[in-house]
């Protein structure tokens, strides 16, 4: 009886572009609920590692302790192992005090200024006890120095600024980074931006379009705030140059009506085609972020299954008979 019929869909994907911290892809043959669930999971539920507990030993800087602790928390850390790590809340090897390798990573920072020049304390001053977890800008710089130093901003890149010191000031602390999710605190969110749009479908009524003069066509094209249409220099016909530049602003439709040509153009959003743009903070590679989001969503679905003992299909039937 169970699982007799399936209403499963088979979504299609096409990748347009992948970079370490950026990805653009098309998702087809599914609906907006899946697209939105993926977006929401990427933003709020894919785990990363971030500094969560700070023990300040010496702080004679101009910023107070909690201000510095907050700034440290916001520094993105490389989190490739976060999916495998434990949440310190569920960790049985320790009491969640960050003394164990399964759920936490310890950082040390010790900087003092003894010159007349202002000294910047940055993410590069954080010393990690676990080489796989370090500030993302430090990791990216180490990587680009190894391959080719031209790909990254040269010289000017000094890490993420935490606080500035003047002569005689000192900052010494111990910080513990833990696994967490963006739902708990935004510092754990691996996503800088995740967006999706419906793929636009544009139909130009060619017959009606040809009743316009070249001047009128130009006027109509210019009414669009983004460059969606253009005029073919040879045939003087209006052509779609970039359908995805359309922002669903309806300006061209209103313009057509104002020109007395309603029905000149029809634009729909295809309800089963989405164009995703994913930007990562660098904590996880953009592609891995999407893969992890799918995996997390599956785990969530698994958790909301009815337990076998509760599944009383026959019980319900007999109850009503």
């Amino acid at each position, binding site marked *: *009886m*169970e*699982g007799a*019929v*399936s*209403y*499963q*869909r*088979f*979504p*299609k*994907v*096409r*990748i347009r572009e*992948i970079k370490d911290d950026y990805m653009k*892809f098309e998702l087809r043959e*599914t*609906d907006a*609920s*899946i697209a*939105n*669930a993926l977006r*929401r*999971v990427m933003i709020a*539920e894919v785990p990363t590692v971030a500094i969560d507990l700070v023990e300040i030993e010496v702080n004679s800087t101009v910023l107070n302790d909690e201000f510095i602790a907050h700034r440290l928390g916001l520094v993105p850390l490389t989190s490739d192992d976060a999916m495998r790590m434990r949440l310190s*809340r569920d960790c049985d090897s320790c009491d969640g005090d960050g003394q164990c390798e399964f759920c936490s990573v310890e950082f040390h920072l010790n900087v003092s200024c003894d010159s007349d020049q202002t000294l910047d304390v940055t993410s590069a001053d954080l010393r990690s006890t676990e080489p796989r977890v370090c500030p993302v800008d430090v990791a990216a710089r180490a990587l680009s120095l190894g391959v080719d130093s031209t790909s990254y901003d040269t010289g000017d890149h000094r890490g993420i600024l935490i606080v500035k010191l003047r002569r005689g000031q000192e900052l010494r602390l111990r910080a513990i980074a833990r696994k967490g*999710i963006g*739902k*708990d*605190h935004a510092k754990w969110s691996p996503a800088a931006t995740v967006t999706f749009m419906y793929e636009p479908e544009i139909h130009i009524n060619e017959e009606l379009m040809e009743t316009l003069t070249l001047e009128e066509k130009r006027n109509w094209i210019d009414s669009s705030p983004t460059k969606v249409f253009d005029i073919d220099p040879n045939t003087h016909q209006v052509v779609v140059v970039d359908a995805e530049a359309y922002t669903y602003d309806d300006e061209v439709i209103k313009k057509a009506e104002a020109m007395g040509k309603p029905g000149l153009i029809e634009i729909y959003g295809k309800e089963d085609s989405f164009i995703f743009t994913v930007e990562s903070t660098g904590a996880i590679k953009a*592609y891995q972020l*999407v*893969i992890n989001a*799918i*995996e997390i*969503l*599956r785990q*969530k*679905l*698994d*958790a*909301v*299954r*009815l*337990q076998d003992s*509760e*599944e*009383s*299909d026959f019980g*319900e*039937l007999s*109850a*009503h008979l």
Partner: protein
Amino acid sequence: MNAPDRYERFVVPEGTKKVSYERDTKIVNAASFTVEREDHTIGNIIRMQLHRDPNVLFAGYKLPHPLQYKILVRIHTTSQSSPTQAYGQAIEDLDKELQYLKKALEEEKVRYEENLRQGY
């Protein structure tokens, strides 16, 4: 000072069931499911998947209050099915869809990288 702990948004309290359901006393084949510590992410995909099932006469979900971290899913089916069966089937289908999507994405990445190599 008296702010609730942040983890209360996603940790199911001890002694509480993640999913519980209650049959409607007046209508046959209708039930309400209470899913603890979930939100629109899960609620909306289950609802939309239930709508694909022709035996489901009604499916809806709500988040009763932003500070009550639970959702209610209400399902009404024909006599050919039952709310529990439809609910289980919807989750099963979504899980398979995501499994398929993950595989499709991995294959597409291989193809994309192969194309990049040939471009050089």
